[in-house]
């Protein structure tokens, strides 16, 4: 329950990003503000301040003010880190959740079809999953991202521009399909031999009816349990890709892109990298705990098996 509350709070915070940008930070989170200024104690100061010590080398963005403007400081473009973190959270959550849905739906279809029909269908689908599984996830995701995000994707009449967040959603959604489809297939193989399924077969139920009425309801809890877990994993993957500049494209933000922005400021303005890192960690932990909770709720036997 605590995980759910934390998650809801984070989601609400991120949803409120435009309000924070307009009424609290009073800044544009997506426009460079290199020559911008801010007022502190009645004095106007540059957001990116040139060093005045010694040789005067380097330009530093302001650090956390812990007040409404530049609460967590500014990034190297002079933009409000807090505002960008809230907007970035929206992208991270949207990409994580949407790609998890795509992943679970695709994995559910493939796993159920392969497990239920068996034989040649199973062989083809299982080998396809094996091929996909053979690639290390990040390597596959990076390859797809480099190709698609640096150009664009055109499927028939639909063109996805290189900056579209649909691209990372699709990429991440697809690369994890084998990880979810495999256990579902195994579960379906087991279900197929159970008495209630055999009884339905004996009663003359057609395949579609069997799948819809007997198999799917028994597999659905597994898929639902996977959903928050995959959301957490996908968010981390998205952050990794964005950290490598092949996820969300500027000036859009995600927690990964903000961490990337912060790497160059680690010595002087560590908060730029630390703050989104903390948000990412909290969200991932909350989603994992939620996944455990959902599993316990949907499968009490598992809890008993765990000795609780």
């Amino acid at each position, binding site marked *: 329950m605590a995980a759910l509350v934390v998650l809801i709070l984070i989601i609400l915070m991120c949803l409120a990003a435009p309000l924070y940008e307009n009424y609290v930070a009073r800044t544009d989170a997506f*426009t*460079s503000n*290199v*020559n911008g200024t801010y007022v502190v104690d009645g004095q106007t100061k540059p957001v*990116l301040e*040139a*060093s005045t*010590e*010694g*040789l*005067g*080398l*380097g*330009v*530093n963005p302001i650090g956390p003010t812990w007040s409404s403007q530049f609460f967590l400081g500014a990034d*190297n*473009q002079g933009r409000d880190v807090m505002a960008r973190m809230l907007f970035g959270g929206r992208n991270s959550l949207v990409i994580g959740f949407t790609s998890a849905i795509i992943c679970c739906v695709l994995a559910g279809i493939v796993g159920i079809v392969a497990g239920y029909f068996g034989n040649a269908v199973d062989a083809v689908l299982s080998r396809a999953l094996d091929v996909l599984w053979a690639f290390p996830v990040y390597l596959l995701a990076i390859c797809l991202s480099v190709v698609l995000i*640096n150009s664009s994707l055109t499927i028939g009449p639909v063109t996805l*521009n*290189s*900056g579209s967040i649909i691209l990372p959603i699709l990429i991440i959604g697809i690369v994890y399909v084998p990880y979810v489809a495999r256990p579902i297939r195994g579960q379906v193989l087991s279900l197929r031999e159970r008495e209630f399924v055999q009884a339905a077969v004996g009663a003359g139920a057609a395949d579609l009816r069997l799948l819809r009425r007997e198999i799917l309801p028994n597999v659905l809890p597994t898929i639902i349990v996977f959903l928050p877990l995959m959301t957490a994993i996908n968010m981390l993957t998205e952050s990794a890709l964005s950290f490598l*500049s092949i996820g969300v*494209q*500027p*000036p859009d933000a995600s927690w990964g892109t903000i961490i990337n922005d912060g790497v*160059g*400021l*680690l*010595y*002087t*303005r560590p908060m730029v990298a630390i703050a989104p890192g903390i948000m990412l960690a909290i969200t991932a932990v909350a989603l994992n705990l939620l996944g455990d909770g959902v599993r316990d709720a949907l499968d009490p036997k598992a809890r008993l098996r765990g000795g609780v």
Partner: protein
Amino acid sequence: MRARRTSLVVLPLSAMLVLAACTSSSTPAATSSASGSGTSSASGSTATTGYQAAHAGGTLTLLAKSAGGTLDPKVNYTLQYWQLYQATFDGLTAFKKVNGQDSFTVVPDLATEIPTPTNGGKTYVFTLRPGIKFSDGTDVTTDDVVASFQRIFKVSSPTAGSFYNGIVGSDVCLKTPATCKLDAGVIGDKAKGTVTINLTAPDPEFLYKLSVPHAAINPKSAPTKDAGNALIPTTGPYMFTSYDPNTALVMKRNPFFKEWSTDAQPQGYPDEINYKFGLTVEAEVTAVENGQANWVFDPPPADRLAEIGSKYADQAHINALTAFWYAPMNVNIAPFNNAKARQAVNWAVDRNAIVKLYGGSTLAQPVCTFLPPEFPGHVDDCQYSNPAGTTWQGPDLEKAKSLVTESGTAGQAVTIVVSDDEVNKAIGEYLQSVLNSIGYKASVKAISGNIQFTYIQNTNNKVQISLTQWYQDYPAASDFLNVLLGCASFTPGSDSSINIAGYCNKTVQAQMDAALKTEQTSMDQANAQWAAVDKAAMTESPVAPLITPKLIDFLSKDTGNYQFSKQFYMLVSQLWVK
């Protein structure tokens, strides 16, 4: 800041100059005394007078994130190794190895003197210094000189078709490198110890071209292909003794070296130079701070600059470079095939913002022209500044917006292609913001620095606007204007089309041709013509000049005698570790 590693770039085969008559008074040595030094040093780096034997000895440890590629001086085209070649290889001539502006002066090196060209400026007869040996103990002979010029073509040196295509017979060598002879172009006379070089046309910049490492004299036994990691015997005070691009490059004293010219090839101080690779730049900076290494090749990360500038100020040396960062705009595709759209970008970009993103005013200055300050031909002029002035004052966004509206290009999608390092990405993101603010739908494409430079040159990639840098090869205005804007430098569909904007204006080209011709009689007059070319080109705005960078050399506390050549940067061999 990747420019330090990749700034010396491959010129197109057709980029260089074809000249008419020449007189002996227009040698580079006589024309390279441009005004001022422009060099500032943070600490008391002092150029010594005379060799100070008490400081000889010790091991100099240099650090770089990665190696600079092939060690072959005929093939390598990186500042990283060109800097080392100054203490290892020699040509017939050399840039003077001294501090400051005088380092642009060409002096005789393996040749006894700089000859006066004859045959209407087309023939140079060099006399080889006697008694010079390679590091393997063999004598340097005219055969080695002839073989070295053949080797430029046999190994397909990056500048074979641009710097050395004026040598008689080079056209055949370019077509069939393997059998390159240059029979009528480079003629050695072993008995007299002379080498005669015949050109197809006078070239006032030829001595500059002889002074870069691609014209270094190697033994005739050197491989006729890229030597890669193999070690080629040297003539300078140091020789390479081992090279593993993954770990280190080691240089030791050349036992056969005897100083023949302090200007051309001074004796070095350290006994050994150990160039280590593989650390992160952060770790490199820390190692120098702790005295575990003497120098960092890579530019310090942005978040360490303040620390270096304050806590280690006396170990940092900052020098102006003859270079500029600029944004070429493709004049052949929308929206920048419209001059007003290009001018709008020039009005809109705040050069001071770029300076900030580069690291502050100590490390960069805004520019408005192709030719950097203190470079031959440079005249202060700023056509796109608000308020108007001869130097950069500020942008005019309103004017930029109205020009975009007038051009009818508002709302068009524009992609800015930048290198994927921290500084380039930051500037790219800023340009994106600027372009959005004047009415475009801009996006940034950050691609690996290893391929970005060639990617933006190829017209097949349809790059609209990009961010890149140009560093001089030698101190001549043509090395910027004729190379970057000349019609001959534009080769559609090629990765080697250095006229990235694809700008070919016949009127401007005629002006450049005239300036090149004037160079044969008077460099001063020619430079005035180059200044006019610069102004004419900027009116058409094929590029947006942004900043001229400075270089920071960060040395350990116990490293002395820092000297900075404006041509090849820090003189490694002159550093003291004792």
